[in-house]
């Protein structure tokens, strides 16, 4: 681990564990925007961690920012930190100074249409399942300008919102724009031609999942040592031990898989794109997430099924995150197509050429 990674890990572990608790998580699920938490996170510079230095950010690499995203997943941070980080980075990579505030994104549906009239652009249309659309200041959205794919930064407050939530009660709103003027229109740079925003969104969810899975593991370890049945801690039963061994292995796999994708994201000018690594991360972390959630609940018994106990904040997130920005089978199909087209005898050379 690099020094930056270590520092970020310590900072985020401490910061998030101080900020987040069951009460916070319960309230945000009732659609209360936890402004003090957002303020603290912003003040700590986390939203701008990946933004280039000339845009006022810290220019930290993905492989180091892995720590921020991982720990935000570990603690179920209930604000769009990850969405803001990724959007701000994406803007900065396209030579746009990102604004302060909450930035969410849209990249997994039919792109918006950009209409040119009187030398200015207008956007009309509806985008759905937008993380914290109702609380966001801006939304970075995929759009089409004639036949060309572009990104637009929109003022979120100019949209009509219909609130919704994912399985874990995280805000996933629909936003309707009616002849809104985009604040910026971005042509995709060459480096990003094969890596759409969806790729980075999927990457971010993979890292969050790996954090969440580790949280379940830690939770299960401490719970199984405390909970006694038949006169001994349930951790002493081999059946429980083996379930937790499986969980530990899955946690390690999810973590490495998402690090693989972060490392690749730091080399964005690789002409072949980083779909391969992101698919690896999203598939592997997604599979582990499902398993971790079931093992987590099985080991906890009835208490884990209560609203009171914290386990569900993370297991429900994992079920949401694994299906957002491409499920395992979505990414597996993209990857499998490539592998088959690449030819059986070239797979090994391809894998080893990619580190």
């Amino acid at each position, binding site marked *: 681990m690099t020094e930056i990674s270590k520092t970020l890990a310590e900072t985020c572990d401490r910061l998030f564990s101080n900020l987040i608790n069951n009460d916070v998580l319960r309230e945000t699920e009732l659609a209360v925007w936890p402004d003090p938490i957002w303020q603290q996170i912003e003040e700590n510079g986390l939203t701008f961690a990946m933004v280039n230095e000339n845009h006022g950010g810290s220019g930290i690499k993905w492989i180091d920012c892995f720590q921020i995203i991982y720990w935000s997943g570990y603690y179920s941070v209930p604000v769009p930190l990850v969405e803001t980080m990724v959007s701000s980075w994406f803007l900065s990579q396209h030579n746009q100074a990102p604004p302060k505030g909450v930035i969410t994104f849209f990249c997994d549906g039919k792109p918006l249409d950009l209409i040119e009239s009187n030398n200015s652009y207008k956007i009309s249309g509806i985008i759905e399942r937008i993380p914290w659309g109702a609380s966001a200041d801006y939304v970075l959205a995929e759009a089409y300008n004639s036949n060309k794919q572009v990104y637009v930064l929109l003022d979120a407050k100019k949209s009509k919102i219909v609130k919704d939530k994912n399985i874990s009660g995280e805000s996933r709103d629909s936003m309707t724009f009616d002849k809104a003027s985009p604040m910026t229109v971005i042509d995709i740079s060459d480096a990003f031609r094969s890596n759409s925003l969806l790729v980075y969104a999927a990457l971010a969810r993979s890292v969050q999942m790996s954090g969440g899975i580790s949280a379940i593991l830690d939770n299960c370890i401490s719970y199984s040592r405390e909970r006694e049945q038949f006169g001994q801690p349930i951790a002493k039963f081999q059946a429980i031990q083996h379930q937790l061994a499986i969980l530990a292995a899955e946690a*390690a796999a999810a973590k490495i898989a998402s690090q693989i994708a972060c490392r690749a994201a730091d080399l964005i000018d690789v002409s072949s794109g980083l779909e391969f690594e992101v698919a690896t991360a999203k598939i592997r972390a997604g599979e582990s997430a499902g398993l971790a959630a079931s093992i987590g609940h099985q080991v906890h018994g009835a208490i884990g099924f209560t609203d009171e106990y914290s386990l569900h904040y993370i297991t429900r997130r994992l079920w949401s995150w694994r299906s957002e920005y491409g499920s395992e089978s979505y990414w597996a199909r993209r990857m499998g197509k490539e592998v088959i087209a690449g030819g059986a005898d070239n797979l090994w050379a391809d894998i080893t050429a990619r580190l």
Partner: protein
Amino acid sequence: MQAFNLDLCDLPPGVDVLREEVRSFLFETLGSYSKPNRARSWSAFDADFSGRLGDRGWLGMTWPEPYGSSRSALERYIVIEELLAFGAPVAAHWIGERQSGPLLLRFGSDKQQEKLLPGIASGKSFFCIGMSEPNSGSDLASINTHAKRDNDGWVVNGQKIWTTYAQKCHYMIALVRTSGSVKDRHDGLSQLIINLRDPGITISPIRNMIGDKEFNEVKFDNVFVSDSMLVGEEGNGWQQVIAELAFERSGPDRFLSAYRLMVELIRMFHKTEDKHAEVAIGRLTAHLVTLRQMSLAVAAVLETGEQPTIEATVIKDLGVAFEQLIPEIAHDLINVAPNILHGSDYEKSLAYIQQACVSFSLRGGTTEILRSVIARGLGLR
């Protein structure tokens, strides 16, 4: 709290050259080696091929001079993953190079090193592992084979079983009881290097369910072993065995054993569009890429001299599950009943792996035992 730590490692610069060298060597020496033979992976024994690897300096390459060339663990990793991905017949030297050599380097005497390491590194002398016995499998500490003091050596009596390629190897490193009795468990065990040509040894191959003769029963009837062949300290055998098993559990052999079937499976979908196949092959690839990086991460930790025992165990557990998944997915995707005599390369590869893979979760410690080791690492036991 973090249960354990595995972080991504970067390969040192320059390994691409080494990788290319290995690839062209394989192409030259084994260009016409058949696909079904390749599916046998590290079970195929070819003394000649091992000798050639030795000539290239690719055996024991991490060992210090004069035995090896002090290359890094990651460089060795590159060589062995290329051998496995190709499906080269590496069984002859595999155990010696992976396990016995490193064990001797760590615990062996100068004399033993001088006598035995050059043979391993040149791919000429082959080793097998004498741990299991008829009544001692997972419960290895319960072994009965014993060695009694006799002047300047030991007299060994007892029986080992499942000893892979004992019939073709020169030496066995055997775990034996040198003092106390079975109820002393981990105390009183020692490791002896036994020359398998010595009098009193009877080796009988046991035909496995695939029809191959790989593992053996090895009987010892008053076999004399000189003091100079005791590895490390008398009575320290258990600790040494545990260290030895760590060398065994995290390498690419722990997830590439069925790779050649994966290749043949992918070939079957050449120029076709099949949604199920795409999804399944994508998933397998994601597992493969992840396992490889986990295993590399452990290799990098080993390089620092640390013993990532738990992490290594995790890789074997996940790796075996992946290997065993491949024939299941193949069966699921392709509607054919494999024929073993005149079937296609795919059929023969599937037929072999389908049968062989049940042993992957037994050899080197069963899945259940591995999970208990991991659980101990998690502080549950």
